[in-house]
């Protein structure tokens, strides 16, 4: 889907709309619609926003259904970031039939600061979606966009609208178009070459909200440790298709597969992590007889060893500038998190003193590392602030909770939890609120959230 134009000559479209409808109030005078303004709420409170159902300009069943979907998904997308106080949708219904007859008085009664009005119209080539954000007090359009594309995935219109609204109104990088990748045994296929009853694990991707779950590997073996490349076009992961764990990169939009640790006869290779610029990966390997951290170019060349310690070193993650790598080592007994320079020089510094695994460095502006910590019989997700070294806990003993991964804006985490029975993928806000379960079929592990 491609955005054709930033707003906005709506007059023509609105004229044709009105032609099909009962007599309308006179058109509003032309407004300076290129100028975007920001909707504000009461001092100290987020703006109160209403997102009524979009107006289906074409009245066929599909258009009506698409209008319903887009407005509901947009509501959910906006709600996810909690930048707006969304007025619950059950207290209102669509009262407008077009952009020109919005009953602002009634929206003021609901104390709405902003009102999103959208229209959906089928066209010869697909779909046209128009959107306006009105300032309810001034009755001015604060923001407008027009989108056109196919009817295949209406949710994507909502995701793009949400991301652009957040950017325009709140200066926030939304994550509505990001995706998760994780491993799952949901298809129930059996692993070959063994008499044991073992289910294969394949990689699946999903929208950030858990919709559109799709399988991306078909190698009928153990495929784990997926990691999105920073450009979101490739997934590095560990596959056991050669017997032991080896690192592969699947370029999912080109149907190409690279085997990065090809020809490594000795040892296994796990847990690839992309450098922030996408040119290199650090990973864990036992090629030299012990589990150590290595770095290589994205084509598998130029492998260099970063750690040298007889303990287990595993689970590397890059700092946002790519200058440091945090990893897990049991050189002090239990596995703890250490930080070293990205070239392996100097001696690593100890970060956590409890059983900890799978550190994942937050994106800027936060400077935190999320990890899975042993808290009892199971593990919980914790976050350590690197400046203050203060630790906060996000989950509290509901099942075991592992493998956290940050959203690109650092405001959310996805993780695996067994709180609902089998292991499933959940998301949670960085303050521990807003827990959502994204997967329900089979068991699902080791999520990774795209940039």
């Amino acid at each position: 889907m491609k955005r054709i134009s930033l707003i906005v000559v709506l007059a023509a479209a609105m004229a044709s709309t009105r032609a099909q409808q009962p007599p309308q109030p006179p058109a509003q005078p032309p407004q300076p619609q290129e100028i975007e303004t920001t909707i504000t709420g009461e001092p100290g409170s987020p703006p109160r926003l209403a997102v009524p159902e979009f107006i289906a300009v074409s009245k066929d069943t599909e258009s009506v259904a698409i209008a319903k979907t887009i407005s509901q998904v947009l509501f959910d997308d906006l709600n996810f970031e909690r930048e707006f106080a969304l007025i619950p949708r059950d207290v209102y219904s669509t009262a407008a039939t077009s952009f020109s007859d919005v009953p602002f008085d009634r929206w003021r009664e609901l104390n709405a600061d902003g009102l999103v009005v959208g229209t959906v119209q089928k066209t010869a080539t697909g779909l046209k979606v128009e959107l306006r954000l009105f300032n309810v007090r001034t009755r001015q359009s604060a923001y407008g966009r027009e989108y056109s594309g196919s009817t295949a995935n209406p949710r994507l219109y909502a995701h793009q609208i949400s991301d652009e609204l957040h950017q325009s109104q709140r200066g926030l990088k939304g994550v509505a178009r990001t995706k998760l990748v994780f491993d799952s045994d949901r298809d129930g296929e059996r692993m070959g070459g063994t008499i044991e009853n073992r289910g294969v694990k394949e990689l699946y991707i999903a929208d950030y909200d858990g919709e559109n779950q799709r399988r991306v590997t078909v190698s009928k073996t153990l495929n784990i440790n997926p990691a999105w490349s920073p450009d979101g076009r490739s997934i590095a992961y560990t596959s056991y298709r050669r017997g032991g764990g080896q690192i592969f990169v699947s370029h999912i939009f080109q149907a190409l597969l690279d085997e990065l640790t090809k020809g490594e006869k000795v040892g296994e290779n796990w847990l690839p992590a992309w450098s922030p610029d996408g040119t290199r990966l650090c990973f864990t390997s036992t090629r030299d007889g012990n589990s150590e951290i290595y770095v290589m170019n994205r084509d598998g060349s130029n492998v260099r060893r970063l750690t040298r310690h007889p303990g287990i070193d595993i689970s590397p993650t890059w700092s946002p500038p790519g200058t440091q790598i945090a990893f897990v080592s049991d050189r002090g007994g239990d596995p703890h998190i250490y930080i070293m320079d990205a070239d392996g020089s100097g001696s690593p510094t100890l970060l956590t003193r409890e059983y900890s695994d799978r550190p994942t460095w937050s994106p800027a502006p936060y400077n935190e590392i999320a990890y899975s910590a042993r808290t009892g019989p199971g593990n919980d997700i914790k976050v350590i602030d690197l400046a203050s070294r203060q630790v906060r806990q996000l989950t509290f003993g509901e099942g075991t909770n592992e493998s956290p991964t940050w959203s690109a804006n650092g405001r959310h985490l996805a993780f695996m939890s067994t709180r609902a029975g089998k292991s499933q993928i959940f998301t949670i806000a960085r303050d521990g609120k807003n827990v959502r379960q994204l997967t329900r079929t089979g068991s699902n592990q080791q999520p990774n959230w795209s940039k």
Partner: protein
Amino acid sequence: MTRVWGTTVLLLMVMSVAGCGKKQAPIARPMPPPFPGAISTPSSRPPATPEPVAEPTIVPPEPVRDDAIASASLDDLNRNSPLKPVFFDYNSSDLSPDAQRALDENAATIKKYPSWAVTIEGHCDERGTAEYNLALGERRSVAARAYLVSLGIPADRVRTVSYGKEFPFDPGHDEAAFRKNRRAHFVITAK
């Protein structure tokens, strides 16, 4: 074929080490077919025996009649494996006396069937995290392999793989299940 060829190579190596001067009857042969109760000692060939014969006679192995293990298919073998799993303590790859006893028996069996290739899988219980358990499972499989090698099993006959906690043998969530899942599991991959 692999075995015969291996023998040939060994003979040639022995020749080159010991020199070709002495004229003695060839004594090295392909391995005798194993049978129950036999104590096969493939590694106890006299190392200094010279071997002047350029083309040793290739004797195909005799069909084995009495050995159910040797005649079973790989899948059947692994289903009732003569190789015993080795169990570990929590978060440990140390070999307990029990583990060493099991490995002693496994080593004897592997020696008895010199054509076998074996993979040792390292497994963990679910309490450790998935990522760390990959390395812990590797530790366990490597510990078991190192012990076998110390007993004279050729290193190239034993591969290792770590499955972390991906494939528990007992899906339960109690200590009884965990105990079964902290193991080095033996798989015969060629015979």
